[in-house]
């Protein structure tokens, strides 16, 4: 079958989410107009307005559909599958692809598209989900919508924008709120979306390596969280993981709780293998592959991260620990 895709040939894709008015369009316009030496194809939605004329801007209707694979939460963006296929016909004309989603969009179908469609998977790699939030209005957004929290939960990178409109105390409070939902994303603070573009695009942020290396603390208490708020948790295991046990546990977990698990990512040390195994899932759709070897002398600690609703910390911890080879 198809040969393993060479990551160097894969086009990096950045997904840009965020509420209307958060500063997404400002950021896009900066990416398109600033001189950073890279050319991006940009997929915007029907409500998008760009001030920049660019023949690589594609206007699309977000067409989400369910896959007929017996998995109810497996929805993908059919329009993106077509557009990525079309853009690949002039692959030499751009360095990366940026996909803007509508303000109210759930990021899951976009992310799942990169797991489910073989052509998309082979030709592109999801570089990062970037969520732009408005420091002033985020608290209200989190109160009145599900999507605002989902967009934060899915983020690899968060642009905390309009910080000039809040006091230092308000900013600190917003950050606490963000961290409650997503402990692991990198946060950029900005006014007028003035983030250094080079630190946003082609970062390999979706790459688990980085995510997990930057993960701050793994020593968390064992409180049982049981509510509809999104939380993030991480666990580690010192002993090597038995792949069969892990697959059985993860398979059952995703089948049972995939609806609540927004994102799952992990770097695993498999017993008897010198390579790191990277695992990730969006809801029930999972994917995994060996990535480079462990470094010489590096402690081979397996780590896993969950972001979702109704996470049962002791249960997840015990489950992961039981995957260790005896």
């Amino acid at each position, binding site marked *: 079958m198809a040969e393993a895709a060479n990551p160097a040939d894969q086009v990096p894709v950045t997904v840009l989410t965020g509420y209307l008015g958060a500063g997404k369009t400002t950021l896009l316009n900066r990416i398109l107009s600033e001189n950073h030496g890279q050319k991006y194809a940009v997929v915007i939605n029907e409500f998008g307005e760009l001030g920049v004329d660019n023949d690589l801007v594609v206007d699309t209707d977000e067409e989400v559909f369910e896959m007929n694979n017996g998995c109810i939460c497996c929805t993908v963006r059919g329009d993106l599958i077509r557009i990525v296929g079309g*853009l690949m*016909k*002039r692959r030499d004309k751009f360095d990366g692809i940026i996909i803007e989603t509508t303000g109210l969009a759930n990021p899951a179908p976009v992310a799942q598209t990169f797991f489910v469609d073989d052509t998309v998977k082979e030709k592109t790699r999801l570089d990062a989900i970037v969520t732009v939030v408005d420091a002033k209005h985020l608290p209200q957004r989190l109160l009145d919508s599900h999507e605002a929290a989902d967009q934060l939960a899915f983020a690899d990178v968060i642009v905390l924008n309009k910080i000039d409109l809040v006091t230092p105390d308000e900013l600190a409070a917003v950050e606490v709120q963000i961290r409650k939902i997503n402990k692991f994303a990198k946060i950029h603070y900005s006014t007028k979306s003035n983030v250094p573009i080079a630190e946003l695009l082609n970062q390999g942020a979706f790459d688990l390596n980085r995510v997990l290396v930057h993960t701050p603390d793994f020593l968390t208490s064992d409180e049982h969280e049981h509510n509809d708020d999104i939380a993030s948790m991480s666990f580690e295991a010192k002993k090597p993981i038995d792949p069969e046990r892990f697959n059985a546990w993860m398979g059952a977990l995703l089948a049972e709780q995939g609806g609540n698990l927004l994102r799952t990512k992990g770097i695993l040390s498999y017993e008897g293998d010198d390579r790191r195994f990277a695992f990730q899932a969006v809801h029930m759709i999972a994917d995994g592959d060996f990535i480079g070897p462990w470094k010489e002398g590096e402690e081979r600690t397996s780590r896993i991260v969950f972001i979702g609703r109704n996470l049962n910390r002791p249960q997840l911890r015990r489950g992961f620990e039981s995957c260790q080879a005896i």
Partner: protein
Amino acid sequence: MSSTVSPDQVLQTRGTSRALDAFVVAASFDRAGTACAFALGDGGVVIKRRAGEDFVRSNVHEGAILALGTDPVSGGWITGGDDGRFNRVRPDGTDALIATHGMRWVENVASFTDGKTHLLACGVGKKAIIYNAKDEVVKTFEHPSTVTGVVFDPKGKRIAASHYNGASVWFVASRSDAPRKLEWKGSHIGLTMSPDGDCVVTAMQENSLHGWRLSDNQHMRMSGYPAKTRALSFTRNGKWLATSGADSIVLWPFFGGGPMGKPPTELAGGDGTTCNLVAAHPRDELIAAGFADGLVIIADIGSARILPVAAPGRGPISALCWSPDGSHLAFGTETGFAAVVDLSKR
């Protein structure tokens, strides 16, 4: 021993080829079969005439060309591009705009002629738009979601379009603008119609095919593909539907009660490389196939014999077509290789 025939021999001895330096999106001979056009990802159309060795380029679109078909009006070709243009390329290589659709991609084109009536069609967003020989819009058919394929029936009376949750069949001359809806849940990504106009078959996102027999509303499900089917091609007599998406040519029998309950016939399989495209010969029961490693072969359905045309190594096959008389085969690859092979008796 070097007595084995090189898999590249047909291309070497009977082919004319060129590196075109852009993704070959599609290839098509004109209706008269005098020239073959290659549509490229950089917006160019390159024409190779039957006589001569030249590949002559015209710049037709601003971005990538997404679709190519024949043009009964000029005797040349029609093209759709991601610059929103629906264009005509005349046999001499000059081009003219048929219509522009702004930022919307023109992803599908089709045409029909019976010698008197000429019809052109393009799929743009959720619309399938039909034009007459004067490039005037005859009909605009709206669908619930983006059109992923358009095809005229063999008599030019109807046009079928695939989209999410099925396909729609419209009468071109109908006054009432309601289609016959062929429903099946899921994402349908392309379609074809049988030569007798009775069967519509779509390819689906989930690596399977779905079909409808119009005369008795029979559904047909054809599954088991490891990859998406990009090409659906009926043999001339309608007996076989050749398809890509497996590591062989998969042929579904449309006779003897099939394809329902019948296993498909597989040809040229076994080396683990995905068959990207297939094209049924316009006259005989032969199927040309192009693979992901660049291999091009011709398979004889009756004898299951395989004639290698081009060896692997020039990029994944992305375009494949026969001349109308079946004497020439053209193919192109994702990495810009293009060739026309003369298979006529010498």
